[in-house]
């Protein structure tokens, strides 16, 4: 989080393998779940940011109160950008880990979770961030159920939801849980940077 000009900026990212459903989740939340009064933009923005570094993502800013702005981002999920991920996690408050539940993706998922664990252990701000797991594509055939994935992937201990990003199943409950946790922890923590 950051405080700039007396406004608090929170950062939530969707992190997952390529085509796991990160952008679909973000777009569904924006279209169907975020109340209009929170929206400060008309559509999901595609941006390149972080100066001097390559970071492509979709992003939406939402203003949940007069002085709190939540910025939601997705990563590209492509290996090419792996080197920029550390930067992506800078000042992060919440991470939705999006897992592709298809059986054929298991190996990718294992590698991805191993990478995530490295970040969780080494990136300071990520250590304090809220993590929520989204087991996506639960509506498809040839998938592992979320309880099976909990056994197969070392992600125990984090709250999780079986979701379907295309019809939005369970996305809003997951988002509410994330917001609840972040907001309630606000008073326990210091912002990462303040510019008045």
């Amino acid at each position, binding site marked *: 989080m950051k405080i*700039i000009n007396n406004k608090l900026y929170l950062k939530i990212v969707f992190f997952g393998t390529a085509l796991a459903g990160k952008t679909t989740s973000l777009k569904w939340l924006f279209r169907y779940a975020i109340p209009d009064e929170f929206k400060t933009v008309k559509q999901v923005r595609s941006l390149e940011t972080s*100066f001097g570094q390559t970071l492509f993502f979709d992003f939406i800013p939402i203003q949940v109160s007069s002085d709190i702005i939540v910025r939601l981002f997705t990563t590209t999920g492509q290996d090419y950008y792996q080197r920029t991920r550390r930067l992506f996690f800078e*000042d992060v408050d919440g991470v939705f880990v999006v897992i592709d539940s298809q059986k054929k993706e298991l190996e990718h998922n294992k590698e991805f979770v191993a990478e995530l664990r490295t970040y969780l252990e080494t990136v300071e701000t990520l250590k304090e961030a809220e993590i929520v797991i989204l087991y996506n594509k639960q509506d498809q055939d040839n998938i592992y159920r979320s309880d099976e994935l909990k056994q197969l992937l070392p992600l125990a201990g984090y709250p999780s939801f079986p979701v379907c990003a295309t019809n939005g199943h369970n996305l809003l*409950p997951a988002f509410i849980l994330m917001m609840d946790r972040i907001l309630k922890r606000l008073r326990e923590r210091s912002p990462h940077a*303040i*510019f008045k």
Partner: protein
Amino acid sequence: MDEIKTIIQDILKRVPGIKGLILLDIDGIPVEVAGHFEMRPEDLGALLAACYNSYAQVGTELGQNLDMIIIEYGDLKLCQSGMPRGLLTIIASKESYLGLIRLEAKRAIEKIGRLMQDTQDLRKSMMEQHKFRMPGDQDIEMILAKLRKGL
């Protein structure tokens, strides 16, 4: 950050032809805006960050970190200078002197860059000064209630 505000306002007043200055932080959030703009600062910040990074990416691919970007388009001149944790954009009229703007931009980012150093000490001292009110239980419940309406 009164010092940053002073530096930016000072350039606006002193240099002829400058219409405005915008200082963005590393995520494209406007830290300081001087001059009059029709766009919302948030949108303007996103646009300018996208603009700068679009070019900076080419520089990165060429193995070069860009120091300054100047764009002249129509009646405007845009001078963008990157620093480790921010981006300063100067917007000037067609008639302005580019040499002077270059010089001002160079001098400003040196000073601002130092001020934007995100050190632990600075954070602490600013925490003590900041006027931000952390949300109470009631505020949080109100936000969550609005979200729950969608369930």
